[in-house]
């Protein structure tokens, strides 16, 4: 598959975008567009609060966050965001069922100790969950392993194998599989190419699993 072939499949984002939106990382833009104004949102692994800050100021959401790094938490609290220092494995259990309209787990699932359990918790505390993660089935990842015989290092997986926080990598097909196991409904999915541009492919198909560098999934409780 050539690079041009990959690019030709993308569907450009047509809607007009504000400058605040433009400043967001592309995958966060995709997530931001999935969130209704005034929603109660919990962003787990919220980093420096880029998404939360945007959602709070531009969409008037009730924005809460969980972040592991002290620098990230400080950056958030300094912006006036409500963020607790903690992690997805240990600090979500206290939240009541259905506490949030949307729970966001962006590029974090693969770094959790128990991703399956984290997913269950997301589905419990959120009416909807938006999960994005790097696709380990992406052809460049596969090529690094198959052709070069090395653990892949890509812009999304930018750590050497020995210091990577990503301890539970999965492919899009794996993720769809665990959703099926948990009885989680995939309400919507967007696959992103390596430039973070969205393109529409069936997440259950082989092509998505090969061409997407990352996937963004909107999940709800209940059978498909």
């Amino acid at each position, binding site marked *: 598959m050539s690079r041009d072939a990959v690019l030709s499949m993308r569907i450009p984002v047509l809607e007009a975008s504000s400058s605040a939106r433009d400043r967001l990382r592309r995958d966060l833009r995709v997530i931001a567009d999935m969130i209704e104004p005034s929603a109660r949102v919990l962003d787990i692994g919220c980093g420096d609060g880029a998404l939360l800050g945007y959602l709070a100021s531009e969409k008037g959401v009730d924005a809460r966050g969980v972040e592991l790094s002290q620098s990230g938490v400080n950056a958030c*609290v300094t912006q006036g965001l*409500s963020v607790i220092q903690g992690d997805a494995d240990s600090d979500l259990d206290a939240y009541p069922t259905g506490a949030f309209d949307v729970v966001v787990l962006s590029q974090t699932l693969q770094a959790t100790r128990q991703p399956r359990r984290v997913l269950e918790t997301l589905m419990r505390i959120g009416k909807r969950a938006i999960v994005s993660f790097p696709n380990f089935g992406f052809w460049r990842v596969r090529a690094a392993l198959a052709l070069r015989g090395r653990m892949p290092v890509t812009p999304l997986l930018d750590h050497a194998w020995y210091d990577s926080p990503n301890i539970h990598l999965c492919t899009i097909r794996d993720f769809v599989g665990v959703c099926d196991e948990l009885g989680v409904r995939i309400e919507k999915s967007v696959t992103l190419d390596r430039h973070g541009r969205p393109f529409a492919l069936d997440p259950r198909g082989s092509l998505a699993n090969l061409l997407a560098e990352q996937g963004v999934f909107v999940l709800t409780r209940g059978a498909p």
Partner: protein
Amino acid sequence: MPSAITPRTLKRPDTDWPGYRLVVREPLQLDCGVDFGPFTIAYQTYGTLNAERSNAILICHALTGDQYVADPHPITAHPGWWSTMAGPGLVLDTDRYFLICANVLGGCMGTTGPKDIDPATGKPWALSFPLITVRDMVRAQKRLIDHLGIETLFCVIGGSMGGMQVLEWAASYPDNVFAAVPVASAARHSAQNIAFHEVGRQAIMADPDWCDGQYLDAGRRPARGLAVARMAAHITYLSEAALHRKFGRNLQDRNTVTWGFDADFQVESYLRHQGSTFVDRFDANSYLYITRAMDYFDLAAEHGGSLPAAFAGARSRFCVISFTSDWLFPTPESRELVHALNAVAANVSFVEIATDKGHDAFLLHEPELFETLRGFLNGCAEHHGLART
């Protein structure tokens, strides 16, 4: 009713300490069952209360703290205990906020405590002073806030026992606290902390000069017992790393050990100094009463054993802060508090600050603490409609 308060000096028969005094006539119903009063609250203020009375911050002091947050201590002449935090342009910005700090009930810096005269006997209360709780301290502060005509406190903030008062405020008066900042604190006093307090109390009570609590009548002071209590407690405020960094095994003004029990080591000399200066400014019976109040503090127990229940009606925005090397109020205590607040979907931020300074970190220049607080308060001020100055 003052809409703008500027510091002035009130004369008392025994002191000319700066600050204000409010005599509360209506008795306070204490947790121990006693109706207590009238009593005096000694307090200090900084900055100006705005016309809407919406910019007041109540600062709650710790076990051995007092109302002199940002001006020199009237006995020791040391700078106020939070003078790095509170003042013009500082985190607790007196150009923007109206700061209030009251000496706690049972204290010894002007608010009625065991060293004061029981009007019924004409003698010092000593051990006939009723046992008080953190909730009683907060009830007394509420009287003061009512007196000042402030309906909603913009913020209630405090470290250690001050943090306990913050939590009690948020739980007892959820409609009157916009933002709550408990620093290096917990929703209950741990067994280990009760144990340390008991060591301190026993040291005081073992001093013959304590005279079964009647030392004022006897014209004596249990200085040695109180100093030992302070020395033991002071160790718990530091960390092994901080002690090592500060003192190591260095000797005090000598090249070799003296083969005796003099203060050979710098750390011994430091502790002795901490103990001996403390007795100049603190009352031994107050130390007994206030440590007991901390021991009795268990916010969950006050609400049927459930910590989330304590915050069921909480509408405040919380900022919980702990320090990595604090072994007196370790981070898991703060985390438990955060989880309880999460359970009621309260608006909460939580930061654990990396430092080797131990529990004392909340009193020291800790840039991360200042930065976090400044950001949190700015965000809250925006939501509370307090214009930036």
